């Protein structure tokens, strides 16, 4: 007599139907979440018009700042390796891409923890971490269609944006931006887990917002940073969110060399995911849901 229950003794081959069933259930659960986040975002239509306006204003402000920067240099001059045309493209495409990869996962986690709704997530047989990332991806997909495309169209109409370095470069830029989304999503989730311990993380979310604008290279390409600051940029994952994809777009990284930054993006995404999962598990001990 062995103490095993029959279920534990089955052969790997017999496991396949269960894995299949599990995967089907998982996809069903996650696609329901995906559909839900689509609907929630549809309900706030004004947010889109104002959002498109906001992006246009960001690009316009930086467009004029760069115009003024290059006004002091002879025509066609390169500053830290960038011409004015390249810099205009950098800023415009950078903000178009940002409309896709930016997510509010930290804010959403904070909202769930503070309202106590997180308990309804935790009693279901689903992975909270994965749900939040997939939900973020669903929102990104939504933004791609209804936000990134119109923003891109308006910006391309108004500002002199150069075409990508080539078809391959453009595909690599898209792939790299998707990986950038994943890195930022995991970092945001990590910041969100702080809400288990702190009463309010609004201030931290806001400063993360400003820090990432600078550290990702969105506002200023890293070659413009002073030499002493370069190690900081290289030690952090943020340049892989904005700067690396834009280098691919501009052809500053050739398609033949592209595997290297793409690999480090994958590694950074994995590292951030592991760290976020670890932080989440450590945080559960601090969770206190009142009633509900």
């Amino acid at each position, binding site marked *: 007599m062995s103490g095993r229950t029959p279920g534990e003794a089955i052969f790997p081959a017999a496991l396949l139907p269960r894995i299949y069933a599990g995967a089907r259930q998982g996809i069903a659960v996650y696609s329901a979440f995906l559909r839900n986040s689509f609907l929630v975002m549809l309900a706030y239509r004004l947010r889109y018009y104002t959002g498109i306006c*906001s992006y246009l204003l960001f690009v*316009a402000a930086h467009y*004029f700042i760069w115009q003024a920067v290059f006004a002091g240099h002879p025509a066609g001059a390169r500053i830290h390796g960038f011409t004015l045309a390249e810099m205009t493209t950098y800023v415009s495409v950078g903000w178009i891409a940002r409309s896709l990869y930016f997510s509010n996962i930290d804010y959403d986690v904070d909202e769930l923890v503070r309202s106590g709704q997180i308990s309804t997530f935790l009693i279901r047989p689903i992975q909270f971490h994965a749900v939040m990332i997939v939900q973020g991806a669903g929102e990104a997909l939504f933004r791609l269609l209804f936000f990134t495309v119109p923003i891109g169209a308006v910006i391309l109409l108004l500002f002199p944006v150069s075409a990508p370095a080539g078809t391959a470069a453009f595909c690599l830029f898209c792939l790299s931006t998707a990986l950038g989304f994943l890195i930022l999503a995991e970092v945001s989730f990590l910041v969100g887990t702080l809400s288990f311990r702190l009463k*309010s993380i609004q201030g931290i979310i806001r400063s993360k917002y400003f820090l990432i604008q600078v550290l990702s290279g969105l506002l200023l390409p890293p070659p413009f940073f*002073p030499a002493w*600051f370069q190690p900081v940029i290289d030690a952090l994952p943020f340049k892989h969110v904005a700067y690396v994809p834009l280098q691919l777009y501009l052809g500053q990284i050739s398609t033949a060399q592209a595997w290297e930054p793409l690999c480090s993006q994958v590694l950074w995404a994995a590292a951030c995911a592991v760290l976020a999962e670890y932080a989440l598990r450590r945080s559960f001990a601090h969770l206190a849901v009142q009633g509900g």
Partner: protein
Amino acid sequence: MIYRSVALYAAYFAQFLKARLAYRADFAASLLSNLVGGAAGVLFVFFLMDGKTITNLRGWSREEILLIYGFSTIAMALFSFVSFNLFRFGDRYIVQGNFDRVLLRPLNSLCQVLFETFNIESLGTLAVGLAVVSYAGRRLGIAFTAMDYLWLLLGSLSGALILLAVFIFVASLSFHFEDRLGVSAPVYNLINFSRYPLPIFHPVIQFILQWIIPFAFSAFYPAAYFLKRPELLPYCYAVPAVAVVSLAIAGTAWSFGVRRYCSTGS
């Protein structure tokens, strides 16, 4: 009557302070993150205007730009000290129906909304702004006489009041169009333009910032007092007047909205 109101709002503030300081670690984290957030913005200007390759923006020197940016940071910090509820006015007060509670009290409705929450953390941003202004001021050889300090106070207060007036106006639109978010986000992003010398922007943008949404008077013109550019001085001295007029317009829009207000019933 005024004395009573001031005493009451002081009590509001004391009460808020007690609640906020109940969680010290949390407050310290917020204060620090505000400091970091403010510093990150300045970092962009510091790194861009390195003084070697890039020394000026269409003739505006690195120090002049830092001074304008610092001035803007101070005005923004003062503004964000009381403005938090304006950004969620449509959601929290109109859609969720909290404005009914405000109207039940025999106090000015706008003051109640403004003074129900304070963003004490913005002191972190204020510190960054003061540091940048004093750095740029010293590099520009400003003596910082008593008169200069007085203008720093008057100019940044007026700047903050102009920002406040614009967002009171925007919030008052929620009385007519029920929406959780409203249009405050793009208007807020417009502030970005006011943190740099106005003449570097397109004439249309200059016109809007000067005559329609007067953000140019929130930082650029007040800072011009310290810059040796006499052609800007008339605008500079107009700053307090612009603040008063903007507040009057915003106050009128608010009262008009209050009279038209009907509860959502929630």
